């Protein structure tokens, strides 16, 4: 109960007019930054950093975290409306969010996303409040084999689920892994798959891939489908927003499952992006309406959004307690902490409780403010959608290209994004699954690093992945998830033996 008392003290710190004002400003700035792909939360936070030098640390961190929430919400907005994920972690939101928006239900999609995101963030903050002391020690138990096991679990949950041709899925996963490999290798310090092209030694940024595959690819698809963009139907009314919010509790199973996945991935080094993917995959597998996922299913929006935000909140804890940032944004914030004269680490909780608990309290408030503000922006976006595609299309194209450029100020990246746009278009039309491709880009090189670090420290013995209860459990769950589709087929075959009408369908190649 000690934590609760400290949290109340934290609220006293955070609930001043000055701090609430800062939260509002931070969230608004974050929204703008999150909506523009390429600008993103890390950019926004590093931009505000100089401003915070003159503030006291508590106000400064409140500003930065509020901006972070705002950016997370802004990223979901563009995912749903234009299929451009403003943040890596909102890629999975495009899978169902954009189809729903295209159907003319943009307002519903946005409301679902923001509502479940708010719920996820709240669960995350509650977990932080209750478990802060324990989490720091738990995170210390993660060596390289455990890191690998976490990534393996995320992969395993995803691989089994893809429908369609298994060969195309294979090609997509492997191409994604290859993209992640390009550039400087952490373990050997050598450049890989660069083919002597200087620009490639910098690696191919995940954001560039996503802007191309999803943003530009979707533009091309829209034209191909004859400019069908039913934004006009996006009726905006308060009633739709309220009705959708009232609809949310119906998905309580998905909400809870996703929040738990999110917390787990946020505390362990998986991070928000992996969390949202994994939650989407598991949602698709375990939901009764799983087979409608990808066509604009509400649960397909709820699952990734909840997990993304609960992971985003939980990930702040390892950052404060261990000094290991879970994301690029967290890395910038940590830099800020050091400039303000605070060192993140296990002692921060005892030396500066006002700071830590003020921050945690501000996370409760910041999220509420973010949800309210972001719901208020829905009409603006619905209005943009009403413009004809001949006007909106080129504008989206410009946003994509500038986004690709601002990732690291290279013209070369714009060409790469265009190339990925073409790939995204062709792949989508030929039913190559894009989700495993993207997941492979995100996790591939991290998983490889963890694997090779484990090998180096064990002297090349694979048994490290099964020694120790933590890593063995995670690997076991991963293998189970991987073999689940296979088991499902066997079970289905067993149960349907008597049912002659359906039996032929599964056995046909």
């Amino acid at each position, binding site marked *: 109960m000690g934590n609760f008392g400290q949290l109340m003290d934290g609220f006293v710190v955070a609930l001043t007019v000055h701090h609430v004002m800062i939260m509002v400003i931070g969230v608004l700035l974050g929204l703008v930054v999150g909506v523009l792909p390429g600008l993103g939360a890390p950019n926004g936070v590093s931009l505000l950093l100089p401003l915070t030098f003159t503030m006291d640390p508590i106000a400064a961190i409140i500003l930065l975290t509020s901006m972070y929430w705002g950016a997370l919400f802004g990223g979901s907005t563009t995912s749903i409306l234009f299929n451009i994920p403003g943040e890596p972690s909102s890629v999975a939101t495009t899978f169902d969010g954009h189809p729903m928006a295209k159907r003319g239900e943009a307002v519903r999609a946005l409301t679902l996303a923001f509502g479940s995101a708010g719920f996820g963030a709240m669960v995350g903050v509650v977990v932080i409040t209750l478990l802060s002391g324990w989490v720091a020690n738990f995170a210390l138990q993660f060596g390289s084999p455990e890191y690998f096991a976490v990534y393996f679990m995320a992969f395993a949950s995803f691989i089994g689920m893809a429908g369609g041709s298994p060969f195309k899925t294979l090609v997509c996963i492997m191409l994604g892994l290859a993209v992640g490999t390009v550039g400087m290798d952490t373990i050997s310090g050598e450049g890989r798959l660069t083919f002597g092209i200087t620009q490639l*030694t*910098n690696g191919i940024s995940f954001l560039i891939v996503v802007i191309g595959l999803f943003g530009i690819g979707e533009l091309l698809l829209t034209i191909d489908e004859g400019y069908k963009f039913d934004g006009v139907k996006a009726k905006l009314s308060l009633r739709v927003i309220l009705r959708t919010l009232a609809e949310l509790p119906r998905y309580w199973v998905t909400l809870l499952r996703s929040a738990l996945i999110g917390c787990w991935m946020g505390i362990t080094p998986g991070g928000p992006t992996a969390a949202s993917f994994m939650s989407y995959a598991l949602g698709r597998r375990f939901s009764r309406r799983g087979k409608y996922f990808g066509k604009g299913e509400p649960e397909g929006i709820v699952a990734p959004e909840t997990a993304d935000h609960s992971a985003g909140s939980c990930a702040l804890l390892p950052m404060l307690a261990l000094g290991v940032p879970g994301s690029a944004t967290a890395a910038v914030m940590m*830099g800020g902490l050091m*400039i303000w004269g605070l060192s993140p680490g296990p002692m921060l909780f005892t030396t500066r409780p006002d700071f830590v608990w003020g921050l945690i309290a501000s996370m409760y408030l910041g999220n509420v403010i973010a949800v309210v503000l972001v719901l208020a922006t829905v009409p603006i976006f619905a209005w943009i959608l009403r413009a004809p595609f001949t006007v909106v299309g080129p504008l989206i194209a410009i946003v994509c290209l500038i986004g690709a450029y601002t990732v*690291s100020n290279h013209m070369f990246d714009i060409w790469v994004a265009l190339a990925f746009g073409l790939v995204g278009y062709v792949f989508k039309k030929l039913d190559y699954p894009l989700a495993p491709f993207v997941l492979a880009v995100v996790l591939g090189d991290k998983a490889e690093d963890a694997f090779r670090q484990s090998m*180096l*420290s064990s*002297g090349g013995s694979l048994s490290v992945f099964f020694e120790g209860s933590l890593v063995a459990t995670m690997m076991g769950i991963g293998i189970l998830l991987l073999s689940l589709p296979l088991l499902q087929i066997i079970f289905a075959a067993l149960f349907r033996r008597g049912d002659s009408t359906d039996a032929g369908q599964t056995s046909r190649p």
Partner: protein
Amino acid sequence: MQITSLRKSVLTASALAVGLTGATAALAEWKPNRPVELVVSAGPGGGSDIFTRVVQAALTKNKLVETPLIVVNKPGGSGSEAFNYAEDNVGSPYKVYFGTQDAYVLPLGTKVNYAMKDLTPVASMVFDVFILWSNPKASGINTAQEFVAKAKENPGKVRVAGAKAKDADETVVTLVERAAGIDLAYIPYKSGSEAAIQVAGGHIEANTNNPSESLEQWKAGNQKPLCVFTSARLTDKTVVADGMSWADIPTCVEAGIDVKDFVQPRTVWMAADVPPEAVAYYTDLMKKAMDTPEFKDYTTRNVQITKFMAGDELKAFLAEQTKNYEKIYADNNWLLPASQ
């Protein structure tokens, strides 16, 4: 037809632009009249990034510059991206580059698209020291002597974590191996703090690190400093943990590992062919930044050695450093085939 005329106009325009920069250079009292980019050869949150942002904070807070300063991260290719950018922006006095020894070490071992002639040295401001740390609880190693003894018993089995491959950390580990006659297993991680956490969690026996990155884990009792890679002990006598201060950490030479001075300079550069007035301006600016309370706080917190070098002193230092590194790289067989 249209294209050629377009290209011609571009050429005239760029020629004019060059002429314009030339004109500014002629002014004696040089001052930037537009935003200045501070280009960092590391990603957000890294050591160089924090260093650059401290300089940015110190300069803006104390109103030492009138134009805005923009920090730009270019971490690609182990940081070579930043210096490559200098090569692309020859003569631009509005871009200042912040790095470590990476500026002159990178070309030795990796294929990079810039050479030292593409950079103008401006200043070296502080030195980050390196410390050898262990996890006393998990590995039972409490002193540098115990570390060496353990490594001798288990050749190739004692693991040392550090940031990146063939960078400062791995270099110092190879120096230790050679000086003590031991064989260690070096394991690279993405950053120094990641490596420190692996040691604190008891997964790895030891790591090399800048003091600040392991400070909190030392206070928490998860890490212990074994020895410091400097020729003289550190000066800070405030007690940190276990009744020990930074000054109580033995130098590695004292502890029997003959590696004298392995420190990391924090260096400031400009592109080649920049007006000398601009170099003078930024040299002076960096000197002023060092006298600000913000910068002093930063160096105390990071237990750095402050030593400002510029001009000929800096050039001599750089030449000597490059020669040292060439030797280490040759010994480690890390040199690029072309430069051998």
